[in-house]
């Protein structure tokens, strides 16, 4: 366990003012397969943490356990200092104690998915205002105004009345990022946002993500984009077989791999 990881685990036990997300000793099994073997993670406000790992390392599961799309078997999640309350379930693993609390916290953790997951029966604009008006109960006019501004920002304002299936993958993903921003989230969760895109469309999505990082948004990014991890993120976390293999500053980690596993991992990418 590296020193920085120990520091992170330490911080998780005493949530401080600047903590945006704090995960403590999270475990998750699918059947007999233990996907997360006690993971801790601390994201401060403004942190951009890239979560790397080969497929099956548990990185997507970690992200999905933070907003409880998957229920972690054990462990703690705090968002903005608030502990997500859990209670023992029937099979001995924990389940959410208060679904209202979970829904409220999810609204603060906007997620961007690998396969976009825009609502296909709504236009882009409707996709952006659906959750802010119905979940956050903000006035529709205000949401529409914000939605149009966000679509201009991600460069697809002229597609605002299109249905998602009529757009390219890159446009859909930018719309999905705008949908996330429309929630004014405290933290943004990116689950392999460029993995389903044709190579020539990756750039336009990464540019938007880079600009979000530069304006100081708190982001957890599961990705295979080494350039993003190295150049944009403030921390890199490398998962291997369900455990945190190493965690640190991207410049240092990419200059000299702190573990053999991570060294092999980046070597494979540079091939």
């Amino acid at each position: 366990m590296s020193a920085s990881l120990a520091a992170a685990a330490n911080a998780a036990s005493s949530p401080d003012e600047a903590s945006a997300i704090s995960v403590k000793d999270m475990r998750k099994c699918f059947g007999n397969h233990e996907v997360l073997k006690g993971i801790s993670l601390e994201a401060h406000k403004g942190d951009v943490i890239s979560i790397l790992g080969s497929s099956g390392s548990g990185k997507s599961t970690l992200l999905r356990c933070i907003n409880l799309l998957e229920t972690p078997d054990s462990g703690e999640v705090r968002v903005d200092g608030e502990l997500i309350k859990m209670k023992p379930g029937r099979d001995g693993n924990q389940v959410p104690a208060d679904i209202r609390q979970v829904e409220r916290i999810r609204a603060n953790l906007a997620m961007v998915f690998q396969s976009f997951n825009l609502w296909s029966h709504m236009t882009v604009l409707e996709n952006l205002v659906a959750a802010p008006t119905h979940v956050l109960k903000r006035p529709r006019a205000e949401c529409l105004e914000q939605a149009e501004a966000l679509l201009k920002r991600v460069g697809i304002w002229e597609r605002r009345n299109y249905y998602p299936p009529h757009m390219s993958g890159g446009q859909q993903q930018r719309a999905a990022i705008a949908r996330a921003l429309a929630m004014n989230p405290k933290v943004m969760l990116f689950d392999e946002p460029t993995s389903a895109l044709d190579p020539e469309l990756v750039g336009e999505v990464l540019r938007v993500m880079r600009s979000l990082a530069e304006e100081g948004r708190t982001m957890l990014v599961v990705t295979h984009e080494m350039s993003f991890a190295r150049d944009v993120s403030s921390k890199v976390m490398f998962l291997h077989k369900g455990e945190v293999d190493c965690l640190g500053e991207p410049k240092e980690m990419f200059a000299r791999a702190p573990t053999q596993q991570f060294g092999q991992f980046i070597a494979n990418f540079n091939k």
Partner: protein
Amino acid sequence: MGFLNSLKDQLSTAYELLAAGWGLQLLWGIGWTLAVTMVSMLIGAALGSLVAAAKLSHRGGLRFIGESYTTVFRGEPELLIIYLFYYGGTQILTGVARSTGSIGSTDILNMPSFLGGVLAVGIISGAYQAEVFRGSFLAIQRGELEAARAYGMSAWLRFRLVIMPQVLRLAVPGLGNVWQLTIKDSALISVTGVAELMLTANKAARSTHHSLLFYTVAGILYLVMTSISTPIFDKAERYTSRSFLRPK
């Protein structure tokens, strides 16, 4: 030439019979047939969505109830269900009314024929609609439901904003088929005495002895009703699936 003359005679008899009042009665029959079909479809939609929800439930008990419903009501002859509701309903109503003393001990309280009929046809229609709704729900992209959860939508919001609009969109072609089935089933409730198209055609055929004429006319009218509904459902399908068609 004898054949043509006889055809001419036939046609003028047909015209006279229809003009003498049977035509108007058949029109009323169409009205009742459409009323029975629509009310049955609505009853079926309510039952069908509940049954579909039960069949999709995580709870074994609810799933069993849903499965039993669709198995029974699709597996029994429609006529049997109608008899069961109409005559069975009459027996129950009579029993209850006699025991509370609201009718004499030899009186009979009939099941209202329209109500008994639409309940029976609606329940059958519900079994078919349940399958349509279930299939439509399963065709929704899982990721879209997940996104709805991830954005903090409650179960009700997910249903109202994401599930229901998509189920309706995907269900339109299937519902068109159920609508045709239900029009045809509505003919069976002539046995309860609702003056819909089948009963009217029957009455006309028997009292005028022109069976060939009236059953043919009724057949054509049923065909018109079922085939007019096809373009209407096609149009509805184009509207509800507009997000999947290429923009013009």
